[in-house]
C-alpha cells in the first residue's frame, strides 16, 4: 500500500521516487570487507609468528608465499563460518583469481620503481645525458661518461626498423583482412607463430646474411633489419585485429559508390583505422627498442659515438646495459650507469606506451571530442 501511495505522490510531483532507482545486484557488504581484512591480517600475524619466530626459516619471498597460502586457507574458513557451500566456493575463487591481477600490477610497479630508485645515482648527473663513454675508465666516478651514444644508436636503429617493418606489416594485415582467400589461413598461422619467435634467431639470420654471405661488417643498419624482423609479426597481428573492426557498412558504401578496392582501402579503411593503427605501430616500436640479443649479435656494442648506421659497431640502450653488467659487472660505477640507462629505456617505453594509449582510446571511426567539435563547426559554416 505504501509503495503505491509513494508512487502516486512521485507522479504528481513529477520526480522519480526513491523506490524506482535500479537495484544494485552486486554490492560489497561490510561482512565481505571484514572477512577479507580479517583473513589478511590474521594470516599475516600467524605467518610472521611461525615463520620468523618458531621455525628457523628466512627469505622475504618465502614469507609472502607462506602468507598467501595461509591467507587463502583463513579466508576459506572464515567464509565457511558465515555462508553456505556454493557461496564460499564462489567468494574464495573470486579472491584467488583477483590476486592474479594484483600480482601482475605489483611486478610492474616493482620493476618501474626499482629501475628508478637504482638509476637515481646516475641520472642526476648532467653528463650522464650529454657524454659518451669514450674517455671513461672502469674506476672513473659517475661524474664522467654517459649514454649519449647509446641514445643516438637506439633512435637510429628503431627509426630504420620502423621504416622497414611498418609498411610491410600493414600491407600484410590489409592482405589478411581485405583480400583473404585460401592463402590467408596459413599466413595468419605463421604470423601468430612468429610473434613468439626467439629474437636471437633474427639476429643469427641477419648475421649469416650480412656478415657471412655479403661480407660486410657488423653495423647498426643490420641490427635495424633484425629488429624489423622481430617487429613485423607484431605490427601485422595488431593491425589485422584493428582492420577487422572497421565497420563493413563503410566498406560496402565505398564499393557501392563505384570505388575500386585500392581506393576503398586508401580512402576509407586506412583513414578510419588510423588512430588504432598508430597504436599498433607504437606498441611494436616499444617492443623493438628493447631488443637486446639480435642487436648484440649484428651491431656489437661500443663506447664511442657512432652516428653512421652503415659502418661499424653501434651501442644502443639495451646493449649498453648488457655490456655494463655482463662485462664490467664488478665495477660499481658501471652497474650504476647500467641502472641509469635502464631508467632511460623504461622512460622511452613508458612514453611510447602512453602515446599508444592516447591514440588508441578511440575505436575505428569513433571521433575524439576535438574532431567532433571541428566537424560541428564546419557544418555550421556550410
Amino acid at each position: 500500500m505504501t509503495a503505491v501511495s509513494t508512487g502516486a505522490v512521485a507522479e504528481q510531483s513529477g520526480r522519480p521516487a526513491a523506490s524506482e532507482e535500479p537495484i544494485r545486484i552486486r554490492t560489497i557488504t561490510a561482512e565481505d570487507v571484514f572477512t577479507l581484512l580479517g583473513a589478511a591480517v590474521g594470516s599475516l600475524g600467524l605467518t610472521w609468528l611461525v615463520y620468523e619466530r618458531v621455525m628457523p626459516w628466512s627469505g622475504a619471498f618465502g614469507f609472502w608465499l607462506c602468507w598467501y597460502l595461509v591467507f587463502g586457507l583463513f579466508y576459506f574458513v572464515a567464509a565457511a563460518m558465515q555462508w553456505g557451500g556454493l557461496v564460499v566456493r564462489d567468494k574464495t575463487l573470486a579472491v584467488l583469481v583477483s590476486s592474479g591481477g594484483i600480482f601482475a600490477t605489483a611486478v610492474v610497479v616493482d620493476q618501474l620503481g626499482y629501475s628508478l630508485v637504482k638509476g637515481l645515482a646516475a641520472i642526476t648527473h648532467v653528463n650522464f645525458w650529454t657524454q659518451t663513454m669514450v674517455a671513461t675508465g672502469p674506476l672513473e666516478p659517475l661524474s664522467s661518461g654517459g649514454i649519449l651514444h647509446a641514445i643516438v644508436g637506439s633512435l637510429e636503429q628503431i627509426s630504420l626498423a620502423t621504416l622497414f617493418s611498418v609498411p610491410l606489416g600493414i600491407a600484410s594485415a590489409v592482405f589478411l583482412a581485405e583480400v583473404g582467400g585460401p592463402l590467408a589461413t596459413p599466413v595468419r598461422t605463421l604470423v601468430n607463430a612468429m610473434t613468439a619467435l626467439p629474437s636471437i634467431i633474427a639476429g643469427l639470420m641477419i648475421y649469416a646474411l650480412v656478415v657471412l654471405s655479403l661480407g660486410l661488417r657488423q653495423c647498426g643498419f643490420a641490427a635495424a633489419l633484425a629488429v624489423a624482423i622481430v617487429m613485423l609479426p607484431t605490427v601485422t597481428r595488431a593491425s589485422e585485429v584493428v582492420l577487422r573492426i572497421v565497420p563493413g557498412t563503410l566498406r560496402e558504401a565505398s564499393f557501392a559508390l563505384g570505388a575500386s578496392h585500392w581506393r576503398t582501402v586508401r580512402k576509407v579503411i586506412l583513414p578510419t583505422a588510423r588512430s588504432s593503427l598508430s597504436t599498433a605501430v607504437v606498441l611494436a616500436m616499444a617492443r623493438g627498442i628493447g631488443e637486446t640479443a639480435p642487436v648484440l649479435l649484428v651491431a656489437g656494442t661500443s663506447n664511442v659515438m657512432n652516428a653512421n648506421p652503415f659502418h661499424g659497431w653501434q651501442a644502443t640502450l639495451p646493449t649498453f646495459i648488457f655490456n655494463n653488467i655482463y662485462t664490467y659487472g664488478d665495477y660499481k660505477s658501471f652497474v650504476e650507469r647500467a641502472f641509469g640507462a635502464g631508467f632511460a629505456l623504461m622512460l622511452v617505453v613508458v612514453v611510447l606506451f602512453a602515446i599508444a594509449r592516447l591514440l588508441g582510446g578511440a575505436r575505428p571511426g569513433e571521433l575524439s571530442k576535438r574532431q567532433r567539435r571541428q566537424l560541428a563547426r564546419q557544418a555550421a559554416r556550410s
Partner: protein
Amino acid sequence: MAVTVTSVRPVPADDDVPRTVVSRSSRSDVVFRAVLRMAGLSSFVITGLILAFLIVRSAWTFEVDGLGFFTKQEWIFSGNDFGIGGVLPDTLIIAVIASVVAIPIALATAIFIAEYAPGRLRRVLVAVIDLMAAIPSIIYGVWGRYFLMPRMAGTADWLARHLSWFPPFKVTIQYTSSTFIGSPFIAGLVVSLMAVPIITSLSREVFAQAPQGEREGAYALGSTRWGMVRTVVIPFGRGGATGACMLGIGRALGETIAVLLIVNPIQSANWHILQSGGNSIAALIAGDWSTAGAHELSALMAAGLALFALTLIVNSLASIIINRSRSGAATAD
C-alpha cells in the same frame, strides 16, 4: 499434409541454379591485390630465409658431428668439439619451470580481468598487462639478477632443506654462499614473468568472447559467478587458452638476455633446479658469440637451428589449436 504443398506447385529444378555473378576487377585492383598478396607472403619468405641461412651456415657442424651434436654434453671451443646434449635439456628445464609458475597466474589474471573486474579496473589492468609485455627483456634480466636473485636465495635454501625428497629440489653441490645463485629455478621465475603477459592477454580476449546468452543461461539456472565461469567461460575458452599457454612456452624457450644475466652457464644438464648452474640455447649463443671462431660460429648456428625448429613447432601448434578451437574460430573472422 505438407506433401500437398509440393504437389500443388512443383518447382522445376533447372530454374533453381543461382545466377553466376561475374565481376571484373580493374587493372589497378589486380596489381593492388598482387602487391598485398606478396606482402602477405613475406612472412613465409622470412621464415624460409631463416631456415635456409641457418642450415647452410651450420652445415660444417652436422658434417663433423652428425646427430651426435644433439647428444654430446660438451662445448669445447679449443678442440672444436660441440654438442647441445646438455644445453637442450637445460633450455627445457627453464621453460618447464616458467610455465608451471606462469600458467596458473596468467589464467587467473585473465579470468579476473574478463569476468570479475569492474569496468574501470579492467581498463587499468589491461594497460598494466600490456605494459608488462612491453617491458624489455633486459630490464627483466637486470631486475632478476639484482633484485630477485638475492631475495630468492633464502626460499631456495628452504625448499632444498625441507623438500629434498622431491628429486629436482635435491642439492648435490657443497653449501656455499653461491649455492643457490644462478640456478635454473630463478631464471625460470624471471622468464615466467615474461610469459605471463602473453598468456594473459591472449586468453583474456578468448574468455571475453564467451557468448552472452550462455552466460545468462547459467545465471538463470541459479549459478554463482564462479559456477558460470566454470561451466561456460572456461569450456568455451579452453582451446584458445591452451594455444595461449603454448605461445607463452614458446617465448620461454627462446628467452636470451634474462637467462644469460642470471644463470651460471654450464654445458651439462642440471636436473637439480635449485642449485647453481643452468643454460639455454639462446643464452649460449649470445654468451659465446663475441669470442667464437669460424667453427664455433657454425656450431652456434646449428644450436640456433635446433631452437628455431623447436619454437616454430610449438608456436605453430599453438596457432593451429587457437584457430581450430571454438573460441579461436570466433576470433579468426
